[in-house]
């Protein structure tokens, strides 16, 4: 499967963190499952025009968090425990986005009740569209790219 990664120069988040988040997102969303092979360091560095040490760093950190496994001479694979991790990761990711939303709402002076209401409305709409449209994924991706 061809994975799509997007590096955002405006985010202020270090590039390796962006990469980690996107790989975690693919695992959390089920696009990557245990045993799937990730692109080689060279491949990814060249296709994204990134310093290979950045990819190495992202992969090492992901291996440390047991999202992926690095097999000597074979490459990087999604870890056996990745699916177990994914539920927790999903929640962590959502929480991060929720925090971002809360910060922005507070800066705009929007009250908590109104925020909850907005969120509920949006969620309902997305759930309603889910059967017909592509579902939640594009919304989540858009959120992650912020």
């Amino acid at each position, binding site marked *: 499967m061809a994975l799509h990664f997007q*590096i955002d*120069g*405006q*985010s*202020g*988040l*270090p*590039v*390796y963190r962006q990469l980690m988040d996107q790989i975690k997102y693919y695992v959390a969303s089920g696009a990557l499952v245990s045993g799937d092979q990730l692109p080689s*360091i*060279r491949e990814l*560095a*060249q*296709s*994204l*025009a*990134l*310093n*290979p*040490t*950045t990819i190495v760093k992202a992969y090492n950190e992901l291996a440390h968090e047991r999202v992926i496994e690095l097999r000597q001479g074979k490459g990087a694979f999604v870890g056996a425990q990745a699916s177990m991790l994914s539920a927790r990761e999903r929640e962590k990711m959502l929480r991060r986005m929720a925090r971002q939303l809360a*910060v922005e709402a*507070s*800066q705009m002076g929007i009250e908590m009740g109104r925020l909850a209401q907005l969120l509920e409305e949006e969620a309902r709409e997305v759930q309603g569209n889910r059967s017909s449209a592509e579902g939640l994924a594009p919304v989540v991706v858009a959120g992650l790219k912020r």
Partner: protein
Amino acid sequence: MASTITARDLTKTFKGPVVAVTGMDLDIPEGAVFGLIGRNGAGKTTTLRLLMGLIRPDSGCCQVLGNDMIAAGSQVRQKVAYVAQSLQLPGWMSVEDLCRCHRHYYSLWDDDLAGRLARQWEVPYARPVSQLSGGQQRQAAILLALAARPRVLLLDEPAAGLDLVARRELLSGLVDALCQEEGCTVVLSTHLIGDLERVADHIGIMDRGRLTACVRLEELLQTTRRVQVVFDQSEVPEGFTIPGARSCHVRGPVISAVVRLTEAEQLRRLREMPGARVNIFSMNLEDIFLDWFDRDGGGRSMVSDDQEDFSLS
């Protein structure tokens, strides 16, 4: 780790007198991608020319791969490639001619790579260089430098005049050089800071001849934050400043500044400020660069003035 490039108290003044580079200390580790940034006339080009041994320093010294490049012989020179900002390829020769000529000077010369890059970058191989566009001439110069499979690559504004696609391809070419077994140390000066953020791991900021910051990019991004304190009252209290900030901007009840947070404790203390709301934003390299040269802020220094903790490791 061994330093591939070093400079000690490097100083160069041109007639005028114009101080181009002054008191520069530099250590670039092997395999680093070092991005040299600064405003026009900050001394970036002079630094690269000094490193290459194209001009003599007034005082101080610099070494590349342990050699003074002014005295270095062909054994050393063939390992160091340099692409100048001004285009200097002979216009009557084609890229093919140039490859045939360069081949004899570089023992690791890679004809396949030259051909592959020319095809990838769509640089006409057989046409005289003078008939190529400015961007293509620059790409030709860079592909000649890469095909020499150098250990050290110095690029002065390599992306100037290249379109977005060509810039991305240039970065890929650089990445290819970095992926070699032998490893390549790259120093590049550029104004395209977004591009730099993708490939550089070390950043040097030059300001009026001085290297005012020399730092790992990741460290710079992780510790630099824009802090905004919004007071509940209508004005910022008299004499209030954000701890750790060199200069603060005040507008009504809001005071903001760029702060380097070296410890989590600093962040906690900021967040717990009574009677005010604190917002903390991360910054990208471009924001940091702009803040650096915000003259209202009085300029700043992370190396020479306060001898701080920022140095290459």
